[in-house]
């Protein structure tokens, strides 16, 4: 199994440990990731707010690089995944727009590259049973709720992944590595996303509600697969005690017995290491 890898800007900055843990887990599972040479920013939430053309052209350049590389494209960041998948959706269906974007970017769209989130590769390609068979250290006693946020699952006709109302992929993966997954109704609610800087009050309300509901569900932590969700959950909780969050790949790494886990967890603003230690899962 080999894929092109698009880290996006976040995985080199605020989502550093998401990138590190993704690469380490994939390497351990023997899934090849080759970083797309010369990739550019996908435009995130800003390009589509200000220019429709730019919101297609920026991701299209990455699709063009992925076509040249000849592998399907893995984008861990939910926003990057959504923007590139969305551009692919439009280029596939609208010949006039495709022609315009091809002209701007200087490539020929072939439609042969599929954009995938990390969760889809692990669940659909590698398989839950195969992951369960690799577990060295089951996460017994760790009570969690899965938190997808928006852009991995919506709009479903674009994302073609999991189910926006009844998501199951993260739960099954977490159960396969021995974590206790608790039911809750907020797995695909919004964290406030890019409003974090301009309207931190709005984001504090949304994140506060997520933290409260996770707590009520009996969870000790949330599990994310999006660097923006993760940073909002860590930066915008205002009431104590703050509930920590993990990237799903960090918990996979922990269950696989990878030695680097402690280093990833030390990058969090809300330190999850006391929790890990309290359930006897030592992360040095």
């Amino acid at each position, binding site marked *: 199994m080999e894929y092109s890898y698009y880290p996006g*800007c*976040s995985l*080199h*900055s*605020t989502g*550093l440990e998401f990138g590190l843990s993704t690469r380490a887990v994939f390497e351990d599972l023997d899934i090849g990731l080759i970083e797309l*040479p*010369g*990739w*550019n*920013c996908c*435009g*995130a*939430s*800003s*390009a*589509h*707010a*200000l*220019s*429709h*053309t*730019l*919101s297609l*052209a*920026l991701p299209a*350049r990455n699709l063009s690089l992925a076509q040249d590389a000849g592998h399907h494209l893995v984008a861990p960041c939910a926003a990057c995944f959504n923007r590139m998948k969305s551009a692919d959706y439009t280029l596939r269906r609208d010949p006039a727009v495709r022609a*315009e974007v091809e*002209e*701007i*970017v200087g490539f020929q769209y072939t439609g042969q590259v599929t954009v995938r989130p990390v969760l889809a590769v692990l669940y659909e390609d590698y398989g839950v049973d195969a992951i369960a068979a690799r577990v060295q250290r089951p996460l017994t006693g760790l009570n969690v709720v899965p938190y997808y946020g*928006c*852009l991995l699952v*919506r*709009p*479903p006709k674009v994302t073609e992944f999991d189910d*926006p109302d009844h998501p199951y992929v993260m739960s099954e993966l977490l159960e396969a590595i021995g974590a206790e997954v608790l039911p809750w109704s907020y797995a695909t*609610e*919004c964290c*406030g*996303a*890019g*409003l974090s*800087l*301009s*309207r*931190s*009050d*709005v984001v504090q*309300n*949304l994140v506060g509600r997520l933290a409260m509901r996770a707590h009520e569900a009996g969870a000790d932590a949330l599990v994310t697969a999006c660097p923006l969700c993760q940073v909002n959950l860590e*930066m915008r909780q205002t009431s104590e005690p703050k509930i920590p969050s993990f990237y799903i790949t960090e918990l996979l790494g922990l269950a696989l017995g990878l030695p680097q886990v402690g280093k990833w967890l*030390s*990058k969090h*603003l809300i330190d999850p290491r006391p929790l890990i230690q309290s359930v006897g899962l030592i992360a040095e």
Partner: protein
Amino acid sequence: MSDNLALDTNRISGQDIQLCYHCHKCTAGCPVVDAMAYGPDQLLRMVALDERQAVLSSRDIWLCAGCYTCATRCPNDIDISAVMDALRQIALREGCPAGEKDALLFHQLFLSVVGKLGRSHEAAMLGLFKVLSDAPLMDDVGAGLGLFLRGKVPLLPQRSGAASEVRGIFHECRKADQSTD
């Protein structure tokens, strides 16, 4: 641009807002409706009624978080997130002051950094936002420092090898956007 907001909105968004029968599901599910003046359902009605000034100067169009809850739940399959994007773009092209100034500033700073470097650069963007926005200067200093100390906001931008091509793409996109005005 035409003299009818609904026509412009439909053209740019690729949606047909006249399909809305005001079931209110979009507004019921909107995570940021508390902070809005009208909410998505009422805003669609105002677009249909061509209340151009009120819509384009509203804070609502800048508060939309782009979560696609409305677009997913709309029984008539209107991508209301795309409608919000179109309204922002129209407001911007017509020089209508943003009803949520800092939201626009954030997008502009983000894109100006990407337009120069080919990739985002958090340290530059956060610094500029702090100086230029109305947000209190000392807010988030602790969290920013925490991120910095964990090596998460590198001071120097990455060299991507994409910068000059991306600058060209920005240039071409500006031309394409202007030609449709």
